[in-house]
């Protein structure tokens, strides 16, 4: 009987891991959710300004007109759209739709493409 402990391969080097597409969608779902949470007070602040009075609306317009703020909002728009699309995919997976390997890869690709495309379209339109 061998007394040697079998060393299981452990592979957790973040620089070396090549995530499959569904894994990319999954980690981006977490990152986009965390990012939206961090920026939530900023978004509610803008919402508050935009509604309170015509004067604060003008202040709101001034803030969102700045190119750097626009860049941040574009990032948050992508985060929202990715979280939205990936979330629908996860809901469908919970309902056992598309859980085989190939459909799962396919839907992951669709999520990345649709959220990216919507970000570009809405981003260009809003910018």
């Amino acid at each position, binding site marked *: 009987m061998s007394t040697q402990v079998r060393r299981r391969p452990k592979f957790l080097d973040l620089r070396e891991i090549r995530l499959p597409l569904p894994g990319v969608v999954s980690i981006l779902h977490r990152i986009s*959710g965390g990012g939206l949470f961090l920026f*939530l007070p900023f978004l509610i602040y803008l919402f508050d300004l935009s*509604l309170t009075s015509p004067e604060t609306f003008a202040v709101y317009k001034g803030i969102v007109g700045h190119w750097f703020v626009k860049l941040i909002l574009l990032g948050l728009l992508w985060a929202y759209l990715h979280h939205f699309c990936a979330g629908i995919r996860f809901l469908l997976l*919970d309902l056992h739709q598309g859980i085989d390997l190939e459909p799962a890869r396919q839907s992951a690709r669709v999520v990345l493409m649709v959220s990216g495309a919507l970000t570009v379209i809405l981003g260009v339109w809003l910018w």
Partner: protein
Amino acid sequence: MVKRLVVGAHYGVRDWLVQRITAAYMALYTLLFAVAALTLPAMTWEHWHALFSGRWMQFLTFLFFASLCYHAWIGVRDIWMDYIKPLGVRLALHVATALLLIGYLAWVARVLWRL
């Protein structure tokens, strides 16, 4: 005996279910909001203010933010549970997250019912 942690996952499916129900509502509200916002005659304060002055829109919008806060509570709590191992730090982050989200919701309520 099962080891129960005060900052553990509560070992149930209720949060899992709530996260999905709130997600479904937020998705529907997002579509409604997108249609309403994209069909505004012009992006002026008058039209924007009128959109959120309707009683129904106020109620649905408040429900959206309430869903968002509950949904974010579960999601952010999961992030802390995955990456933050010292229990004291984790508890502090849980408390901070919960209090912040409650505060945000109160803020939104004030904005909406002031209109």
